[in-house]
């Protein structure tokens, strides 16, 4: 790890200012991703702005729903009574990720900024447009078993590794950020971006902007939810495919409303809007679930080693829908 200046600003204003003054300055929250990348030399900060003491850790009910402070830890969110009661999908998704120790460190804001686990990104000796723009994509013709099916570009086929974000995408969360120019809100679906020609940019934050909170709008998805994560071992592994399902069923088992999002398939949490549209108003049957799963796969493109995902993804969607609707 290279030497860096360590600062601990007293308030958000000072933090934002401190970040803008350094060329290679980074906010440090839980550190579970940033410190790892610093050790690997993937990021080489000149300045670390430790924001852990900023008062952004509250989880509180607000007029627009539930507000998750950017520095609330993953564990605090997953275990929060309001989350468990009103947003159980989020709790399931968080607990499917990482380990209890990491979830005690990792924060809401940090999780949104979690970078890809693509091996080429982490290995300084191999090409990666995300780490070193213009160096090429090692995964494109390399080991791409974990990689994207949707929205990739020939510059980058990496996937976003977050589980929490898959649930937040499904729940229509809103991200509150603050920068030198003031505060703004970003719809969750607009927060992460596709790689396109600039895979080095994971999200739409402007330089120096600080995530303040994530708001969850009121939700009817309190009962029929499921987060299914298929991986190479039973726990503590990144997703091959993950699916977040939230169903609002009427007494006749018809689908009043539905949210579907997938992880492990794109550069951002992948919301399955077409499948949702198909399911809305239909009955919760295995046949409809199967069709929804097929619809979700439109436009999928696989590479040499992730062909299996073309089958595993719809299977996982189907299984998650069956589980959420109580059909297994």
């Amino acid at each position: 790890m290279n030497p860096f200046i360590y600062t601990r600003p007293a308030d958000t204003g000072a933090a934002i200012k401190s970040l803008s003054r350094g060329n290679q300055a980074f906010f440090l929250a839980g550190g579970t991703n940033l410190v790892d990348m610093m050790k690997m030399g993937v990021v080489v900060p000149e300045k670390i702005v430790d924001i852990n003491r900023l008062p952004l850790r509250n989880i509180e009910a607000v007029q627009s729903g539930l507000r998750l402070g950017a520095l609330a830890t993953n564990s605090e969110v997953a275990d929060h009574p309001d989350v468990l009661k009103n947003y159980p999908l989020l709790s399931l998704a968080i607990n499917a990720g990482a380990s209890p120790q990491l979830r005690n460190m990792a924060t809401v804001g940090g999780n949104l900024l979690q970078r890809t686990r693509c091996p080429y990104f982490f290995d300084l000796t191999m090409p990666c447009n995300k780490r070193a723009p213009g160096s090429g994509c090692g995964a494109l013709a390399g080991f791409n078993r974990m990689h994207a099916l949707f929205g990739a570009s020939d510059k980058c086929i990496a996937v976003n590794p977050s589980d929490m974000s898959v649930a937040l995408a499904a729940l229509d969360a809103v991200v509150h950020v603050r920068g030198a120019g003031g505060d703004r809100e970003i719809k969750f679906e607009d927060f992460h971006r596709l790689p396109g020609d600039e895979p080095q940019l994971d999200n739409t934050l402007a330089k120096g902007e600080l995530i303040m909170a994530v708001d969850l709008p009121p939700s009817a998805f309190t009962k029929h939810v499921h987060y299914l994560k298929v991986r190479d071992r039973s726990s503590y592994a990144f997703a091959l495919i993950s699916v977040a399902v939230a169903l609002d069923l009427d007494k006749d088992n018809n689908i009043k409303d539905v949210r579907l999002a997938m992880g492990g398939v794109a550069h951002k949490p992948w919301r399955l809007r077409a499948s949702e549209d198909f399911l809305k108003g239909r009955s919760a049957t295995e046949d409809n679930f199967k069709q929804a799963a097929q619809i979700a796969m439109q436009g999928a493109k696989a590479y040499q080693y992730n062909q299996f995902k073309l089958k595993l993804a719809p299977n996982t969607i189907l299984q998650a829908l069956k589980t959420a609707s109580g059909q297994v």
Partner: protein
Amino acid sequence: MQNDLQNYENPRDESRRDFLKQSSLLSAIALTPGAIRRAAENKWDEKIADEMGKVPLSLEVNGVPYNLKIDPRVTLLDLLREQLHLTGSKKGCDRGQCGACTVHADGARINSCLSLAVTNDGKKITTIEGLSRGDELHPMQEAFIKHDGFQCGYCTSGQIMSAVALVKEGRTQCAEQISEFMSGNICRCGAYSNIVKAIQEVKNQQS
């Protein structure tokens, strides 16, 4: 104490950076040639720069207060092992991928290898060395011995720290839940089923 340490936005930071970049203090100070040579031989400029790069850190480890000045790159794990000589916490991957370094920070289990020590300013850290009371082992330590929840012993400190936290968290409803919430602690010897038994015993003692 915490207030003093909280606002560590040092106005001299940027100038210190410049200082470090210049790398040689000697050129800025008028010294006799002999003194310069002696200073260079003793790497004084390096030592001074080194000191200036350090950050104050106050924390409590196993009830013992420490007031330190450390290189901000030092992780909590390396601080414990290399500077405080508390080697019970282990390094198995140094990347948050194995759990051998698990300690409690203000009661929560964390991977100390991914926590820069300076970010623990004002915190109370508990390591495996702080779990027993004198000769009296913590019930989890006793249960690990009884159920043989380890072989080589290298992951054991992390397993026990994790297990103690797990019981407090209430994640002990069934073997499956225990296993899931102990999955952040890898054991290559494969003592998992005995670890689960040890945890169940402690849980049953408490209920």
